[in-house]
């Protein structure tokens, strides 16, 4: 099994440690990982802004980069969902189709494909989990609070394997943080208010760290925490699962 690592652009540029943790986690699980070096972005920033019709070149590049691997794994629910729902190619649609069906967000790849049963990780801290909407409601990584259906959570399933971790409960278990791509600047006032409220829920319940599967949500909350001079930190779930 050869896995191509897809690193979202903002992780590549701002949070390389998240990509390193993802790579190491997969390698530790015995997977052969390749990082296609010409990769850039999934095209979601344009598409969510209403410019899906301009993403053609981006889509072709993505198809060229990732079309030849057994699986594509990405440490972001949001970018994964975008590819799954929207990737198309004008002359390599079979490859695009293969990608759409074989791209996985990191935690679901670990629980569903690798079927990880134990981790050699230790993180002795109080941690709040932020469910990114695209991971949760889009990829269905965990049960959604709106539905009358049995609970499950792939990220929690993994976090519970981490030694010493104390997971906190929240008042609103799956409320959006307000990042929302370009929403975070186009609707600055509401975006920030949503972020402040989300962060406050974690702080109220004693979180030392806020974790999640999407660094974009965490970057937004980190911006707010820093402005508040809060000691609470954000950490991508890959970093916690890979910590010792």
């Amino acid at each position: 099994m050869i896995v191509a690592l897809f690193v979202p652009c903002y992780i590549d540029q701002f949070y390389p440690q998240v990509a390193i943790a993802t790579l190491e986690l997969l390698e530790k699980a015995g997977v052969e990982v390749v990082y296609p070096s010409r990769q850039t972005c999934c095209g979601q920033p344009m598409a969510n802004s209403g410019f899906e019709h301009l993403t053609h070149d981006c889509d072709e590049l993505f198809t060229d980069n990732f079309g030849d691997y057994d699986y594509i794994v990405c440490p972001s629910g949001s970018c994964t969902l975008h590819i799954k729902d929207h990737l198309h190619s004008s002359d390599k649609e079979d490859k695009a189709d293969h990608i759409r069906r074989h791209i996985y967000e990191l935690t679901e790849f670990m629980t569903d494909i690798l079927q990880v049963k134990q981790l050699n990780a230790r993180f002795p801290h109080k941690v709040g989990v932020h469910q990114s909407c695209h991971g949760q409601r889009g990829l269905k990584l965990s049960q959604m609070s709106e539905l009358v259906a049995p609970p499950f959570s792939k990220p929690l399933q993994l976090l519970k394997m981490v030694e010493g971790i104390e997971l906190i409960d929240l008042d609103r278990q799956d409320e959006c943080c307000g990042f929302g791509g370009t929403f975070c600047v186009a609707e600055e006032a509401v975006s920030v208010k949503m972020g402040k409220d989300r962060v406050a829920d974690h702080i109220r319940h004693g979180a030392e760290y806020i974790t999640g599967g999407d660094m974009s949500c965490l970057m937004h909350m980190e911006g707010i925490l820093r402005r508040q001079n809060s000691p609470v930190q954000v950490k991508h779930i890959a970093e916690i699962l890979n910590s010792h």
Partner: protein
Amino acid sequence: MSHSDKDHPKLAEQFNADEPRVDWHDETLWWVRVKRDKAARSIPEWEQLRETASRIKNNVLANLSEYLIQFEEQATRNGITVHWAKDGKEHNAIVLGLLQKHGIDRMVKSKSMLTEECHLNDYLQQHGIEVIDTDLGERIVQMRKEPPSHIVLPAIHLKKQDVSDTFHEHLQTEKGNNDPQFLTQAARIHLREKFLTRRAALTGVNFAVAETGEFVVCTNEGNADMGAHLADIHIASMGFEKIIPQRRHLSVFLRLLARSATGQPITTYSSHFKKPRKGAEMHIVLVDNGRSTQLGRKDFRNSLKCIRCGACFNTCPVYRRSGGHSYHTAIAGPIGSILAPNLDMRKYADLPFASTLCGSCSNVCPVKIDIHDQLYKWRQVLMKEGYGSTIKKMGMKGMTFTLSHPGFYQFAGKAGRWAMKAAPFIINNKLNPWYKQRDMPSPPKESFGEWYKKNRK
């Protein structure tokens, strides 16, 4: 996106100037969402019920013209007069004509979002007709000359001291008495006099049954019934998508409606109007006003399945923190944001962007409208049709170029990170909307791409 004074980001920013009030608005509506969850969980077959409702509505859309003809036939047989209106203007003219025919210049009205959509009150007032809204929340906002901010909870943007001030001004209630019980009692006395003296009553319609020609109106206050049963003429205004095939289908919708809306097991009154009262007249106005156009939009026709429960408002984290008036249209919230562009793309181009696409709306919708997917699709339509600003388009083209040219992407990333370190004031300033209330991430010394080249292979 539109750059008038009335776009959602600007109005939302104004709403956010008073943070404690935003907190109150958010928490109050979240509490309604929690009640909805509890009510839904009391029904083990809830998800199956939603699926059933959704499929009944799919059937309605596919057979709409036939059901409308059947309804007209049955209603006429029952003694109800059926009118057809192409748009809001025609609807208003029909209502005015009926009132004038009976020499009536004062009317009571219960909640009807359709009449808000058609701006009926303004029109009738211009023609010398007094309209009194009788739903408590609607009466409050009517006195304040404001539109409702929520389709189910029209005055949810107001605090009790606001209502107290308004009632002191209009009903001469005791100044500073903010007790909801007291204020409601004052409104009860004020409105009872209207019910007893007005000869015409207008109501909305929640459901109309093709099979039987009857229509159902749901209220908690009893105001629709008080108006209709005491008036000589009852006019019901209905968007034509409110039709359902058979009477037994009401069981599905009545189980879902109030639980989704407020968490009640059913509204206090679910009144079935089938024939006019002895000696009285009953009219129903079937209104199109853009609905048939929406029906023809494949990606958006499902929005016509809406039963106006307001659950998507209550769950929407953006609505809760921006208030109904920030949507500058009769029906706010997520559902309003997919209905409004159908009526006027330029005016409402901002609304599909007033969302993070979190998807919670689609999950609470009792008829399973894919609201957040439609928001995404409206964005594509609006930008393709040229309703985006030039600056935004240039930015997007630049971004597209960068992200489809790996060499340029790597260079731009490096230059950007260098700039953040060497000259952070370029990015960390008030012109950058990110930085206004959030810090930027600290730039790392190298990208993952650069690290990978050094550490692997």
